[in-house]
């Protein structure tokens, strides 16, 4: 009999499953990949076959044109959709089940089962309600492979209603300006828009061109974002007193000069730290994240109650220390290619 869990191998470029000959969230192109969600550090282009939720596959197609034909008129990439709650049998007797992770549209934890052993790879996740995706489901397993992006006790994301109130209050106080919100183009931007709508803000929201397609994709998947307009089609006067959403990289860019005296805001969990906000020249920090904060991470580890926790991309040291203090077995995985998302 094989040693316990010998069928799952953390490698520098992702988690490898030898009997199925496939990888979870590999950071380079492979023959067969299981992908948790569409963010670039988890979903790379160029795989031969991708197993993911239909939403994630749609996002990847938009970003990497994985549906494109080659010179021979064939589509070289094979997309294998798996719905939430659905189990798919891989080679070598490995089962994979996709479970909601509550991170962004289509995001899933992947439960892997083999020889009676259960391993969960969370990808990224959060425990807060999000109008753009179904909530994280706590699922029992033997090894829990968790992210740790905000794995420091200083990170506590406030209720999103408070942050929306801050944003709307600032907007009202400066009717002759506009508020420019930097938000990650996949997930954060759409969540901010959906939460603004939930807070009763039904004015048109202006978008940087790079946001348009992803917002449309969200709407096609049933997320209602209200009236969206492009900055490119508007005059300065149109935008006065409105909210504009752009990728974080455009915040201090020439592009923003076409806006009427923008108040620079940024929606990110990093905004909890003042110096981080100052480094990005942010005037209105909005502490909004699609990742679990410290409280959520530790609560999830307790609730899942796995025999062992493996900690990936983020601040592994602190979460590892917490596990040690709470007599939970844990190890840090040195995966490469994961970056701090602008989350």
């Amino acid at each position, binding site marked *: 009999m094989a040693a316990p869990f010998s069928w799952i191998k953390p490698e520098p470029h992702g988690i490898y499953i030898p009997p199925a000959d496939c990888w979870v969230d590999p950071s380079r192109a492979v023959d067969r990949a299981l992908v948790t969600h569409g963010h670039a550090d988890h979903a790379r282009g160029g795989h031969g076959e991708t197993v993911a939720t239909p939403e994630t596959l749609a996002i990847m197609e938009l970003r990497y044109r994985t549906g494109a034909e080659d010179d021979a008129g064939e589509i070289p990439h094979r997309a294998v959709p798996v719905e939430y709650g659905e189990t798919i049998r891989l080679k070598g007797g490995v089962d994979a089940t996709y479970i909601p992770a509550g991170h962004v549209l289509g995001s899933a934890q992947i439960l892997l089962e083999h020889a009676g052993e259960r391993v969960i790879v969370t990808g990224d996740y959060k425990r807060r309600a999000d109008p753009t995706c179904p909530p994280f489901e706590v699922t029992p397993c033997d090894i829990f492979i968790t992210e740790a992006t905000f794995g420091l006790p*200083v990170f506590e994301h406030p209720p999103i209603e408070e942050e929306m109130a801050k944003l709307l209050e600032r907007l009202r106080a400066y009717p002759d300006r506009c508020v420019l919100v930097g938000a990650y183009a996949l997930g954060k931007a759409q969540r901010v828009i959906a939460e603004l709508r939930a807070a009763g803000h039904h004015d048109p929201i202006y978008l940087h061109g790079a946001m348009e397609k992803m917002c449309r994709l969200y709407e096609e998947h049933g997320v209602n974002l209200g009236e969206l307009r492009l900055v490119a089609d508007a005059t300065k006067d149109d935008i006065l007193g409105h909210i504009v959403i752009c990728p974080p990289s455009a915040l201090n860019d020439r592009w923003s000069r076409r806006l009427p005296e923008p108040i620079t805001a940024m929606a990110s969990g990093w905004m909890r*730290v003042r110096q981080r906000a100052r480094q990005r020249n942010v005037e209105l920090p909005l502490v909004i994240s699609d990742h679990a904060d410290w409280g959520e991470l530790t609560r999830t580890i307790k609730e899942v109650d796995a025999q062992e926790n493996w900690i990936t991309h983020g*601040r592994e040291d602190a979460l590892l*220390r917490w596990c040690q203090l709470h007599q939970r077995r844990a190890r840090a995985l040195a995966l490469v290619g994961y970056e701090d998302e602008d989350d």
Partner: protein
Amino acid sequence: MEEFAALIDALVYTRSRNEKLRLIAEYLRATPDPDRGWALAALSDGLDFPAVKSSTIRNLLKDRIDPVLWTLSRDFVGDTAETASLLWPAPDAPPSPPTMSETVALLGEMSRKTVLTELPKLLDRLDSSGRYALLKLATGGMRIGVSSRLAKTAFAQAFDVSVDEVEEYWHGLTPPYADLFAWAAEGADPPDIENLPTFRPFMLAHPLEETVVDLQDYAAEWKWDGIRVQLVRAGGETRLFSRSGDDISTTFPEFLDILPINAVLDGELLVRGTHQGGEEGGAASFNALQQRLGRKTVSKKMLTEYPAFIRLYDALLIEGDDVRTLPWTERRGRLEALASRLPGSHFDLSSVVEAKDFDHLAQIREGSRVDAIEGLMLKRKDSPYIAGRRVGYWYKWKRDPLLVDCVLMYAQRGSGKRSSFFSDYTFGCWDGDPDKGADLLPVGKAYSGFTDDELKKIDRHVRSNTINRFGPVRETDKSLVFEVAFDSVHESKRHKSGLAMRFPRIHRIRWDKPPHEADRIEALRALIAD
């Protein structure tokens, strides 16, 4: 305290100077006395609570959170007060924030002993923003991008008074500045400082750079390499102030009983010697003066081995006469007359450098390195004495810096805005021939001279070329060469290399230069000025 905390938060996130001025002015107008006075003191670094130190906060937190988690958090956030404000466990009771005055009173009452029980009680009454403001206030030095000058300017703006007048009274007053608010906000008589030995803001010079001046209109003086001081006698007391207005009287007791009349004098504090300007120059190197600086008590031996004197540049007040509005030429006349009445053991006059024209002056300046002087000062002959730096009146014309190629050895994480970058660099020169196995010895440290983009690049270099970690310090693989600029180099027992640079800064980053081509210690030693 909530209003003050909100102000601090708003200031942290505001880039524009005008917006900062507006925010502070609005706060000062809307807040009652004495709270606003305490806030003004906090913003202008006028508060000091010796019982509360950064280490106090660290100790308090390490009792409440695992020390490893504390250290990891502190390293990431980069600021002890902020980390503590975020990690402080939320109390069960709803916040009941104290007023500014109550906060200041409670902090003032704390001793090293009571602080560990009293500070937590105060923290428990505040939310996270309030805790941040409290801890910044308590440990002094807000470091939120508001200078003391900016706070005073905002005060002037709030009540529509002149900032020069505010500066004039400032040093005679203490927090919460009741007289200052009464005058500016309520139209009371201005504070009376005539009989107080208070500091008056210095007149400062602009770098000359490409400007060429006509010596018809400007007088030239040597720029001596000591420290700029102001000697004040009023109300029967004499005090000596440094450039920043710090009272350094106790460090230089020889001046406290020496002025025969009431006056405010501007000059350079130096130690007797021959390094600057030769025998007749009569001043030792800055290194000699350094032996005297920063001491709380001064021995007889110090006084005789390193006798200090003031080389007079200018006068602000003479026997109750405010001469600041007079042109420089006239003030100079009054100063010369006064200098002849002062003891030569403790005073002399900074002489005027005579030159035929600007080119001739340039030649004279070239020679100043030999004389170990910093360079020249150019003063417009009709210039009044005005606080601060005004264009067109005074120029400093420093000699060009010295340059040497050094190798980056260690990098340390910066603080504040640079907290996530390795921005403080220790660099070294070769102690012999690097191709024959010579080692690098550290010769200096620099934190400036590079752009934000360069900082990012150096930071990346440090991260990917680390060979050792010591807490916040990384040792690198010694593969990057810096061209370092500095004003002078001196013997120093403090460093293993035996040398210490004055004002070192990164002049250029030599990505192209192989480290073994960097300079050797001998090359640096040859530039020693004393």
